[in-house]
C-alpha cells in the first residue's frame, strides 16, 4: 500500500508569515493525526481526526494553528502567523479505523516523512 504523503518536505519562512502543510493518508484509514516534533523532543499530538470530525485538538494552539479534513481524506494544517518557536517537523500519521473499534491494528500509526519548518 502507498504510504502517508506529506508536502512540502521543507519550508523556510519569516516570523509572522503563514504556512500550510498537506497530508494524504493511507487509503481507507479513517483516523488522521498531526504531530509537532521539536528538535530533541518526542512527537506531540496537535490534532486527531476521525473521518472529517475532530476527536482531539486540546493541544492545538488555536490562536494561530488550524487544521481541516473536509472530505475525510486529505488534510491541511495551517499556521498563521508563525512564531520562532513553531520551528519543528510536522508529522502526519494515519491509522486504520477508529481507535474505539475492534480492529487490532486500530492503534497502530503509519507516519509520513514529515514537513520541516524553519521560522526565521
Amino acid at each position, binding site marked *: 500500500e502507498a504510504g502517508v504523503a506529506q508536502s512540502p518536505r521543507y519550508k523556510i519562512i519569516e516570523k509572522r508569515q503563514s504556512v500550510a502543510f498537506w497530508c494524504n493518508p493511507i487509503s481507507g484509514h479513517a483516523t488522521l493525526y498531526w504531530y509537532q516534533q521539536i528538535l530533541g523532543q518526542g512527537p506531540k499530538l496537535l490534532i486527531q481526526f476521525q473521518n472529517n470530525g475532530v476527536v482531539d485538538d486540546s493541544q492545538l494552539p488555536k490562536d494561530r494553528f488550524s487544521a481541516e479534513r473536509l472530505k475525510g481524506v486529505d488534510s491541511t494544517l495551517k499556521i498563521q502567523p508563525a512564531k520562532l518557536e513553531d520551528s519543528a517537523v510536522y508529522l502526519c500519521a494515519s491509522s486504520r479505523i477508529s481507535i474505539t473499534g475492534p480492529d487490532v491494528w486500530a492503534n497502530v500509526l503509519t507516519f*509520513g516523512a514529515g514537513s520541516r519548518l524553519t521560522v526565521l
Partner: protein
Amino acid sequence: AQRVTQPEKLLSVFKGAPVELKCNYSYSGSPELFWYVQYSRQRLQLLLRHISRESIKGFTADLNKGETSFHLKKPFAQEEDSAMYYCALIGSGGGADGLTFGKGTHLIIQP
C-alpha cells in the same frame, strides 16, 4: 494525564553487547504500549507493541504493570540497530489523547 518517560537521551553500547532502553509510563487505566523507531533518514515506524508479544529484529519488550515500565531489550546489539527509539502509550479510554510519545533515546551501536 498520560505520560511517558525515557530517562536516557543517549545510549551507546558496543556491537554484540546487550541493550536495554528504559521506558516508564504514567496512566491510571490499562494502556497499550508501543516502541517506535526512526532510522537515519527514514520515517518513524512501529517496532513492536506489547499486545503482540513478539520479537522484532531481536528486540522484545515486556509490560510490567507493577513497575509501570515497558523496557526494550535485545541480547546482542547490531550496528544496524543504531537509531532513535520512542516509547509510546495510548490509553484504554478510546485514545482521546492520541498516542503519547516519550522524548526518545538515541541508540548508538559502536563497532
